């Protein structure tokens, strides 16, 4: 804790003038040993944190100086961002590709407020993130004015509803233990963001050499697994089923995920409906029957839901009419098994937990971790007779899958030469250039606004090929989260492609500067439909419901008049760019040129004037 400042003299000190030979009466303090921020850097290193993303702020000036001078800006490296939404969202995307968290450092109170949305997205998406927030806890240490507006007694209240845990250490030893615990909690399924307040005085004060500080060892972590008895019961139901279906929600947690799910499907000879919230399963696996959509569920007698994010939405059709009528997608006699961890940590206030839906068997445990034991239990349950029946079923499913790509191509051909450019065309042109990468690419963006064309046209079989959605739906996620993914991909030489909505990019265009400044290779392909199109459709729906003004829904929803020049915008941030491109013939060559830049280790952007969906 800081010592109180000495009492001021009753008479103001004589102002210092040039030529004075006496030292000023106010004390000037320099340090000669290690300061608290240095120890904090030691803690970050002990946790193997490689990057700290941040928009600088005075409440963590001490830690920042320690990072760059004590730590020499190496492991962790300070990633300069122009907004806390960027720094926090980078952590979200990074974690999904790197398989471990990174940290963001946010300014007291106002920086936390800025970071709140991406923290929320990460919470909804169960992505680990270590948020450190500066704070001047001691009142007598706060300089007059803004430092008081940027400090709080309990800063975590701003985000407590959507972090797994928060801490505010009383001293440096407390800080070390808190950081290790924070990392531990962030990385236990269900994973999520944690929030640690970093006191300014603790950062800045010199450490007493007699103080024996230590950093606890990080525990080797295992993940929660489903109860063996319940798993055996699930296996029994699944083996006995005539038409089982596996629904993969937020399933993949590690690089082993896609092959594990494929193995489960193969063992059971059951089709998989992939909700694409992670890189759950190779998309061209013959048992990946996502193309059949809801039709797959209609005939199912047993449905295994793995880490569902919205069980009600998965199993019911809800029509956007007054009253929200809903009808089940599944048979009345269908049995539902759920394996997941979401129920293990739910907070009441924000309703990201979705509507409750009944199930016959609920198994609390990480679905990916539980899969090997489920496979084992299924194998044990299968008799020779049953094995033959399952094999016959599997053969029919595999034969059925051979027709999927033909149907996909037939749909993609529609509007092929249109202007604005069809989303199918855009995605096909990008894939044409990616397919020679040997799978060393990541599609870092959501794809639902592009009618999921990447999932349908591209070959995705590597654990890093896609990374799902923000889940929280906070717009402004895609550009910086993609950059975080690209940061994780950089050491592997992988190409990161973000098919980025125009509205999303406009929330944080400063992301592009960070990409250029830190030379993070990434290709942004702007899906420029010149609107907040989802909201355009919502307002349209309201106009039609109210039977008025159905030609006025563009008011407040379109981004035109003037059209934004994304290529010039990107150039202003130092990013190679081309566009706007509205003739599909020009798209392929532009992608070629842009990817050449990316392969040299730089970011690039192409502005594509696009069909809405």
């Amino acid at each position, binding site marked *: 804790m800081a010592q109180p400042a000495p009492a001021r003299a009753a008479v103001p000190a004589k102002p210092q003038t040039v030529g004075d030979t006496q030292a000023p009466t106010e004390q000037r303090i320099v340090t000669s040993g290690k300061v608290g921020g240095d120890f904090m850097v030691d803690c970050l290193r002990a946790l193997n944190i490689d990057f700290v993303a941040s928009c600088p702020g005075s409440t963590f000036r001490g830690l920042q100086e320690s990072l760059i001078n004590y730590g020499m800006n190496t492991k962790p490296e300070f990633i300069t961002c122009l907004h806390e939404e960027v720094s926090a969202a980078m952590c979200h995307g990074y974690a999904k590709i790197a398989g471990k968290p990174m940290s963001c450092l946010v300014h007291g109170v106002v920086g936390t407020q800025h970071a709140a949305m991406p923290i929320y997205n990460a919470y909804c998406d169960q992505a680990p993130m270590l948020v450190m927030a500066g704070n001047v806890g001691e009142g007598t240490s706060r300089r007059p004015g803004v430092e008081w507006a940027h400090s709080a007694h309990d800063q975590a209240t701003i985000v407590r509803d959507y972090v797994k845990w928060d801490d505010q250490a009383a001293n440096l030893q407390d800080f070390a233990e808190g950081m290790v615990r924070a990392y531990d909690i962030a990385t236990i399924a269900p994973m999520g963001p944690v929030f640690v307040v970093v006191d300014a005085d603790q950062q800045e004060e010199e450490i007493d050499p007699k103080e024996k500080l230590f950093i606890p060892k990080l525990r080797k972590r295992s993940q929660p697994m489903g109860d063996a008895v319940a798993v055996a019961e699930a296996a029994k139901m699944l083996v006995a089923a005539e038409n089982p279906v596996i629904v993969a929600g937020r399933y993949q947690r590690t690089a082993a995920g896609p092959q594990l799910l494929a193995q489960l499907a193969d063992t059971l000879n059951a089709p998989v409906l992939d909700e694409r919230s992670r890189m759950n399963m190779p998309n061209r696996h013959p048992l990946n029957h996502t193309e059949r959509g809801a039709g797959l569920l209609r005939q199912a007698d047993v449905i295994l839901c793995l880490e569902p994010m919205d069980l009600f939405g998965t199993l019911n059709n809800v029509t956007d009419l007054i009253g929200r009528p809903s009808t089940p997608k599944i048979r009345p006699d269908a049995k539902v098994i759920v394996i997941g961890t979401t129920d293990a940590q739910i907070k009441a206030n924000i309703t990201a937990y979705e509507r409750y839906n009944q199930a016959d068997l609920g198994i609390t445990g990480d679905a990916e971790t539980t899969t090997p034991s489920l496979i084992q239990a299924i194998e044990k349950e299968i008799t020779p007779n049953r094995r033959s029946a399952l094999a016959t079923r599997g053969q029919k499913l595999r034969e059925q899958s051979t027709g999927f790509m033909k149907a996909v*191509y037939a749909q993609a051909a529609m509007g092929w030469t249109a202007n604005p450019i069809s989303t199918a065309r855009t995605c096909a042109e990008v894939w044409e250039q990616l397919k020679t990468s040997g799978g060393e690419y990541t599609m870092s963006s959501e794809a639902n606004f592009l009618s999921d064309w990447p999932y349908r046209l591209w070959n995705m079989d590597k654990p890093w090929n896609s990374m799902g959605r923000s889940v929280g739906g906070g717009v402004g996620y895609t550009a910086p989260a993609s950059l975080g993914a690209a940061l994780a991909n950089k050491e592997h030489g992988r190409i990161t492609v973000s098919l980025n909505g125009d509205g999303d990019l406009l929330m944080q265009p400063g992301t592009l500067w960070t990409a250029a400044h830190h030379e993070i290779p990434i290709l942004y392909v702007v899906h420029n439909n010149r609107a907040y199109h989802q909201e355009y459709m919502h307002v349209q729906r309201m106009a039609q419901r109210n039977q008025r003004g159905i030609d006025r829904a563009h008011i407040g929803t379109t981004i035109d008049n003037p059209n934004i020049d994304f290529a010039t915008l990107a150039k202003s941030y130092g990013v190679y760019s081309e566009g706007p491109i509205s003739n599909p013939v020009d798209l392929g060559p532009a992608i070629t040129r842009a990817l050449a830049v990316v392969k040299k280790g730089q970011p690039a952007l192409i502005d594509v004037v696009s069909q809405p969906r």
Partner: protein
Amino acid sequence: MIRHLQVYGAGMLAGLLVAGSAFAQGAPNGNTVNGKKLFETVGCFQCHGYVGQGGGAGPKLIDPPVWEAFIVQLRTPRQQMPPFTAKVLTDQQAADIYSYVQTFPKPADPATIPLLRN
């Protein structure tokens, strides 16, 4: 509202943008020019795309259903499509849109598109 040039095969558009053409048995005469304007101003393109290609938000309109099914879906739609009642879209306007929808070019055989070969 955004205005875009639709790229079609040569001659097709000129031949089809004629007032007073009926393209499906039972459909009233529709003004294709007005139909295009309506298609782009009253929200059809938002889900069905500017050339009726469809997508994640709505099905394709290339090769539309017969008029009787079209008007029923327009007035009392199934699934997520919001209704276009007669109060906001007259029968004539609906016919104009239907007339325009008939002009959407048929897609090429994907086998002829190099990027769509496996």
